[in-house]
């Protein structure tokens, strides 16, 4: 799939380059993530030379070159944009501290790789044509994050580099405190509002609850690589903090027993790496049967859920009292893959539905 036809791994690498994503993930996981390791190189480079990544590597920036050129040719006189990138960074990292990475999805690499590829990139393109340089210079949180790294590193760098930048921001610390406090405060409110929302079914081996919400980049890598298309972006079904995170829906497919691709492409560790041989033992959810609408309660000839269960976890047991078959699920064998739900023929509601574990 454009622009990464080379395979699923390229997807993982793109957001993994971002030290911004890595920093957010490190805060959320309370640990330094062992991702590709490349983001550290990018971060160190940013400390040494201002925005070196933007100039030489950033794929989003490279894509925008054309738009920049076009915007300049149009000789528009763009109004001055306030420098927002820094605030985005502070808001996000502050939010991450209390469990919700506000605008992490604005990371240009997550944007390029993820859910907004089509719309997001188009929007950034349009923005750049109208206001050349606005995205890269004023909005891009990764650029701003590099600026912060560069500025923060100034005292150390002065030991090696003769000439001082003179660019280190005065009052940076005040901004840090203010931005992070706003982010953390809002995230706290958001997570408080979130606490009673319906839990969602997450991809296999995903971290649970608020931990997941804090880590997830909302980049959409997992949804994109899913061969059965069961990973969807939450559009508000599970509370505000869950917006755009991956949730599983088994109406038309299930989480295949032989696939762990989503766990391989997650840049932040929100979905931890999983081996195929371990998949059967990692719980995604647990199905529940609505006896009222199950065809077996009406003595109909149906054997779909048991047939399609990859783990042989479903049996039909005859009840002497009801004088019909009932669906029996073995929770030891079932991992909640949703094959039963996908196969269930009842309409409009499915008689067997996977619920969050």
């Amino acid at each position, binding site marked *: 799939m454009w622009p990464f036809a080379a395979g699923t791994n390229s997807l993982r690498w793109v957001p993994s380059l971002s030290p911004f994503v890595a920093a957010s993930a490190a805060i959320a996981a309370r640990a330094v993530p062992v991702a590709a390791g490349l983001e550290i190189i990018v971060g160190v480079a940013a400390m040494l030379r201002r925005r070196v990544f933007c100039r030489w590597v950033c794929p989003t920036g490279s894509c925008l070159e054309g738009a920049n050129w076009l915007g300049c040719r149009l000789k528009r006189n763009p109004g001055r944009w306030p420098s927002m990138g820094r605030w985005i960074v502070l808001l996000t990292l502050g939010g991450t501290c209390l469990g919700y990475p506000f605008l992490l999805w604005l990371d240009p690499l997550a944007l390029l790789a993820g859910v907004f590829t089509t719309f997001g990139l188009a929007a950034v393109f349009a923005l750049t044509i109208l206001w050349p340089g606005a995205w890269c210079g004023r909005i891009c949180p990764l650029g701003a994050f590099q600026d912060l790294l560069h500025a923060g590193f100034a005292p150390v760098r002065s030991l090696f580099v003769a000439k001082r930048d003179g660019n280190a921001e005065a009052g940076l610390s005040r901004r840090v405190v203010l931005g992070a406090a706003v982010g953390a405060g809002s995230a706290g409110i958001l997570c408080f509002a979130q606490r009673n929302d319906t839990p969602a079914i997450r991809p296999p081996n995903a971290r649970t609850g608020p931990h997941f919400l804090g880590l997830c980049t909302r980049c959409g890598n997992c949804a994109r690589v899913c061969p059965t298309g069961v990973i969807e972006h939450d559009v508000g079904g599970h509370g505000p903090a869950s917006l755009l995170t991956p949730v599983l829906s088994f109406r038309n497919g299930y989480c295949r027993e032989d696939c762990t691709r989503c766990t391989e492409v997650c840049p932040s560790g929100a979905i931890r790496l999983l081996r195929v041989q371990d998949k059967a033992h990692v719980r995604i959810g647990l199905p529940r049967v609505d006896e009222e609408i199950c065809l*077996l*309660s*009406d*003595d*109909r*000839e*149906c*054997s*779909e859920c*048991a*047939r399609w269960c990859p783990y042989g976890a479903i049996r*039909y047991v*005859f009840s002497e009292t009801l*004088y*019909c*078959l009932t669906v029996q699920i073995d929770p030891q064998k079932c991992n909640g893959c949703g094959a039963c739900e996908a*196969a269930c*023929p009842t309409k409009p509601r499915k008689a067997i539905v996977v619920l969050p574990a």
Partner: protein
Amino acid sequence: MNGPMNRRDCLKVLGLSGLATGLGSSRSQAQNVGESSGFQSSVLASHKVQSGWANATLVNGKVIQPQRELTILDSTDVLVVGGGPAGVVAAIAAQRAGANVTLVERYGHLGGLWTGGLVLLVLGHIVQGGKQVCQGIGEEIMGRLDKLDGAIIDRRSGVNPTVDAEAVKYVMVEMIEEAGVKTFLHCWGVDAIVNDNAVQGVVFESKSGRQAILAKIVIDATGDGDVFASAGAEFEHRSHNVGLVYRIGNLDRIDKDKAGDSPAPKRIGAHTPVPGVNWVNLRGPEVDGLDVATLTRMEMSHRKYIWSHIQKTRQTPGYEQVYLMETAPQLGVRITRVLQGLSTVSLDDLKAGTKFPDVVGVGGSESGNHGPWQIPYGALVPTKVENVLAAGRCISAEIRMADLVRLIPNCFVTGHAAGAAAAVAVQDGRRPRDVDVAKVQKILTEQGAYLG
């Protein structure tokens, strides 16, 4: 009569036997064999006490069946045992392909569980997207039902139709006779005749006694694999739900005002071509469908349940007039013996959409939620025994595929394949395993079958 006989029983037996002796002697004295009596009944033969008749005897506490010669009732090219959807289609296919065919059926009608088991809903002729994969002779049967009044409903594309059992019995007789298939009803195949690991025919039990039919190829469409099992083929013995289907009447007399908004009672089944009559399925417990004590227990238990269930339904306001019209003559045995074939139908192949070079049919879906699946010829051919082919629910299929293989249209498809293959085997004088599958595929295509 269980338990010790009391005096009254004893007197009854003595009295009846005396009466019978008296009648028998006076009748045989009054009339000669073959002479018309002028009544509704004539003497066909008069049996005296016979000598040399070899009964089974009790020897040291064991019942011993003596060796005896059997009458050969018929000698044919292809013998089809079992007159259900698979057997009937197999017989017609083989006869149309040029073989002489004899069909035997244990009940007094054709159609097997479709008619005798009142499995009136025909599931499995379509796949995802509504494409109909069951074509050929099976579809011809359905097409004939279309032309009859009140024989079939819901014949729209993508929908599973429901038939009338009597119409199916009628259509099958019509088609079997038109094809010229020699048929024996009321014949229960009990033993395969095997020489050098090759089936030569089958022994039957009927009111005419134990007789044999010789054949070059035998198609086992018994559903239970009776023939290949007795011939020594490898098979799996499985349990499944054993139920009893029934029909209820007066559903057009439900008083809707009285019923009000209260939910309709459960298990009142689905509509049939007969107005006001529903057929009701019953799954029953998972048991061994070959064990006669179990079958008896199922039959009795189900009857008690059905009766009480209908009484309960009649107590629902508005449903007072609903009544139990009939229970199916045949118990709903789903799966018993399943052949171990040269190849096996598997769910993984269905998922992968595997194409087989020796495809002889395409199977459909129970609820239209998956694609077509090819049936390889090898699934009909036993691994060891020669000259016998399986058709219907007992073909070689893994356990998760059993519920698809046993669907009526899929039985049409495997029956059609077995019939065509048997005809080719007879023509070429080859064993089923050596049959030129390309020829079989050609015949099937000519006969309208769909091979994907």
